[in-house]
């Protein structure tokens, strides 16, 4: 049996914090560690981990919230598709409130125009297609390697059943490409990465080897429980203070060196690499996934010709710098004033895993 409580014991947490303190007590300069994944960002805030760490260990949030890095033009495209007669948009809940240039999916739904449904699994969207043969179901495919095989799996299901009313608007992205882009950015000095937990369950811990070797940056695959995170930080601090830059795996109970090969084969069958736009970062070559020609029939972007408005970024929003870890949420002039979880301007405030939403909810 595994119990979440075993990974949350406050006595062990205190000891791990003490180890971290001892290790950095004589560090010549502050250490900057980046958590890449939005689920880590939430867990770090929820458990108050920043406040436990010594002042010279700085945790910054990275670009690992898929909703946050999805470009505004994608939301505009989804809105345009939702306005097509007979279309049902199926999406994970997080995408609903993301503001597009002039509307959001939530606004489209509230106006009574768009039929937009929140689903738990891409397979639910396939079931919607089966149950509504006269409607077109467009699933919004957003997410990293954890999620992409589930969307690929849904396309394979739909293909097997010859469903002609299911398609995906894909904005899937891959790790660790943006980590490499950030590490190469001279403005940002990252000493170590808290590498994503469940993305790594698919891509494997070895996926970070080139990053660690090329840029001499420490990488530790880390679980999402509080003791996982503290142990991950302790491993990173140990490496950095010893002048090492290796890949270590704290989350061995679910992540292997090679990851889930079968899941990657499912991705490969349906998707192929492409360049992708990361909101706030720009184009990163080879960091996206598009649906292969063989499955073009299931690609909503190719199947439906809709007019999409020109993308307009909100004025004053600093999501871009926040996603790169260059600014903290409170450095943004809109934070907590114009931009709040109830009325978000930028994606970092919209997504429940966004850095600004986490800071707004748990910040002091």
């Amino acid at each position, binding site marked *: 049996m595994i119990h979440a409580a075993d990974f949350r014991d406050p*006595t062990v947490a205190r000891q*791990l914090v003490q180890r971290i303190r001892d290790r950095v007590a004589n560090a010549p300069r502050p250490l900057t560690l980046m958590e890449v994944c939005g689920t880590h960002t939430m867990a770090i805030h929820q458990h108050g981990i920043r406040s436990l760490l010594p002042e010279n260990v700085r945790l910054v949030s990275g670009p*690992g919230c898929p909703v946050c890095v999805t470009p505004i033009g994608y939301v505009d495209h989804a809105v345009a598709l939702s306005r097509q007669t007979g279309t049902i948009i199926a999406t994970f809940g997080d995408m609903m409130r993301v503001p597009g240039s002039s509307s959001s999916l939530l606004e489209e739904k509230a106006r009574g125009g768009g039929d937009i449904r929140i689903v738990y699994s891409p397979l639910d969207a396939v079931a919607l297609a089966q149950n509504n043969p006269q409607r077109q179901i467009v699933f919004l495919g957003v997410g990293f390697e954890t999620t992409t095989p589930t969307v690929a799996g849904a396309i394979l299901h739909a293909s097997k059943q010859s469903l002609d009313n299911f398609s995906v608007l894909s904005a899937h992205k891959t790790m660790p490409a943006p980590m490499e882009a950030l590490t190469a950015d001279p403005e940002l000095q990252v000493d170590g990465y808290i590498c994503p937990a469940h993305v790594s369950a698919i891509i494997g811990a070895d996926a970070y080897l080139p990053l660690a070797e090329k840029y001499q940056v420490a990488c530790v695959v880390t679980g999402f429980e509080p003791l996982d995170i503290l142990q991950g930080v302790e491993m990173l601090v140990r490496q950095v203070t010893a002048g090492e830059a290796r890949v270590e795996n704290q989350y061995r109970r679910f992540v292997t060196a090679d990851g889930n090969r079968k899941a990657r084969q499912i991705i490969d069958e349906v998707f192929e690499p492409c360049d992708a736009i990361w909101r706030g970062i720009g184009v990163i070559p080879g960091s996206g996934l598009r649906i292969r020609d063989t499955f073009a029939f299931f690609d909503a972007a190719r199947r439906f010709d809709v007019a999409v408005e020109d993308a307009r970024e909100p004025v004053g929003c600093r999501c871009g710098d926040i996603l790169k870890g260059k600014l903290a949420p409170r450095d943004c002039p809109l934070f907590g004033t114009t931009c709040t979880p109830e009325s978000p301007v930028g994606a970092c405030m919209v997504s429940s895993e966004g850095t600004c939403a986490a800071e707004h909810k748990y910040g002091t």
Partner: protein
Amino acid sequence: MCLAVPMQVRKIEDEVAICEIDGVTREASLMMLDDVAVDDFVLIHAGFAIAKLDPAEAEATLQLFREVLDDGGEIA
């Protein structure tokens, strides 16, 4: 978005596992995993089992935590 929940497999029908944790039951596709058996713990994400728990590694991590407690936080 990458949140996934560890659950225990209670039943397997074709390629679908009926999984349970703390009284909550969910169906999960086993399309991405081979060799899953009843009683295994799997990680569920968006209706799919994406990884299988390695009980020995889980125990090794817990053992490390116990050692951290035992040595009172001294650097090993």
